[in-house]
């Protein structure tokens, strides 16, 4: 005996739009928060630059050039941190099947890549007066370069897949695989450095840290954090709008 009741109206309240409900509450909330984060970021970064460029003392060995570490070091921290955060959201997305998590991961990537690029460029500017070369294959810079490749891979995969669903999940897998590899890559680069250059050429020897320098970098880091939140939220809102456009078609048919 078989039953067939396609037309029977079920007691359920239609399709579970929980997947879209989170973005729906997130959208206005993020909208309210962005101006605050932007203002805070502006202030903190300005203060941090002030500390770094004007207040911190001139270094005995490296002169004024070292000041670039106030951008270089926090940028490097964030390039790494944001990648791990992206991978974290990827895990959430796969486990909870929550669209918002996937959107967050997708929104984090460009900012993370930007910080990676910033770290590479500032690292290059730091190295030029010290070593006379625009690029030095030291362990930290090389790892940053590979991190940039990982970000590029993430973007490339995202843009190559048309179907949003598949793009979300596939890039989530890639982000997680990349995150697992990050410590391995970092370790192998360090090992490679010691094998080929003996005493490692290192840009990471920041001048002996006066308290003021550490303070400057932390302020910059905090400023970068607020900036990241503001920019990522703005991006997620854009993403929500884009997807909502497509979802509207679905809703019309229910």
């Amino acid at each position: 005996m078989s039953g067939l009741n396609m037309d029977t109206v079920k007691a359920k309240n239609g399709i579970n739009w929980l997947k879209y409900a989170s973005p729906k509450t997130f959208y206005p909330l993020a909208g309210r928060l962005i101006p605050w984060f932007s203002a805070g970021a502006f202030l903190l970064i300005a203060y941090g630059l002030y500390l770094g460029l004007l207040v911190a003392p001139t270094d005995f060995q490296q002169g004024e050039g070292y000041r670039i570490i106030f951008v270089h070091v926090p940028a490097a921290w964030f390039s790494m941190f944001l990648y791990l955060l992206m991978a974290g959201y990827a895990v959430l997305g796969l486990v909870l099947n929550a669209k918002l998590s996937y959107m967050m991961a997708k929104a984090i990537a460009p900012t993370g890549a930007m910080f990676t690029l910033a770290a590479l460029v500032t690292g290059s500017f730091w190295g030029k007066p010290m070593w006379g070369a625009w690029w030095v294959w030291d362990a930290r810079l090389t790892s940053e370069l590979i991190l940039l490749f990982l970000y590029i891979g993430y973007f490339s995969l995202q843009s190559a897949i048309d179907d949003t669903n598949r793009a979300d999940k596939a890039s989530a897998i890639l982000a997680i695989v990349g995150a697992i590899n990050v410590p391995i890559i970092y370790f192998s680069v360090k090992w490679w450095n010691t094998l080929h250059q003996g005493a490692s050429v290192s840009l990471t020897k920041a001048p002996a840290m006066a308290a003021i320098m550490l303070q400057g970098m932390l302020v910059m880091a905090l400023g970068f954090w607020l900036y990241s939140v503001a920019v990522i939220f703005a991006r997620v809102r854009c993403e929500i709008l884009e997807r909502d456009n497509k979802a509207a078609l679905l809703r019309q048919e229910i």
Partner: protein
Amino acid sequence: MGFLNQSRQLVADNLSIARGDRLLFKYLSFSLDNGSVLHLEGQNGSGKTSLLRTICGLSKPLEGTISWCGDSTDVLAEDFFQQLLYIGHLPGIKEELSAIENLEFSLTLAGLKSEQASIRNVLEELGLKRCMDLPSRYLSQGQKKRVALARLWLQTSPLWVLDEPFTALDVSAVDMLKQRVEDFASQGGIVIMTTHQALQMQVPDLVRLRLNS
């Protein structure tokens, strides 16, 4: 046949399926018991293939569940797959391998030992005596389809999901397939198939379902 007569049931509950951003259908429910044959009809693009793939577990529905013998197919995973025989649009055979080698591999995937003799017998009955040892690239579409369908005579799965099984078949093959489905159903098997043509079948329970786009 005792094995097929064991009580089984496939239940779809409140299925809503989308492809890409297009909703295909919503709130579809049905249940099939031993001897049921479900004829799925509808135009191209109405979601027949998507429904079949969702039943097989290749796609996930937007909403709803599918259960086999009381347990969700999501949870059962390989245990469900073991009892499922799916023949889709694509022939599922490799061009470099002969018909026999392809069927041996299909049986391997089903975890079954294969006997050349029984495979040869079936292929002969299906009219492929002269080409069963050739690489499959030399077979016509119709012949490839018959190789793909040969699994229906070689495997022991109680649930069949067939996507347009009659395409590319000539009249005699159509008759053989129809007969096979009827025999299978009367022994207690469950069949879900898409058809373009309205087909008459002598089975314990024939269900027609039409999807509108």
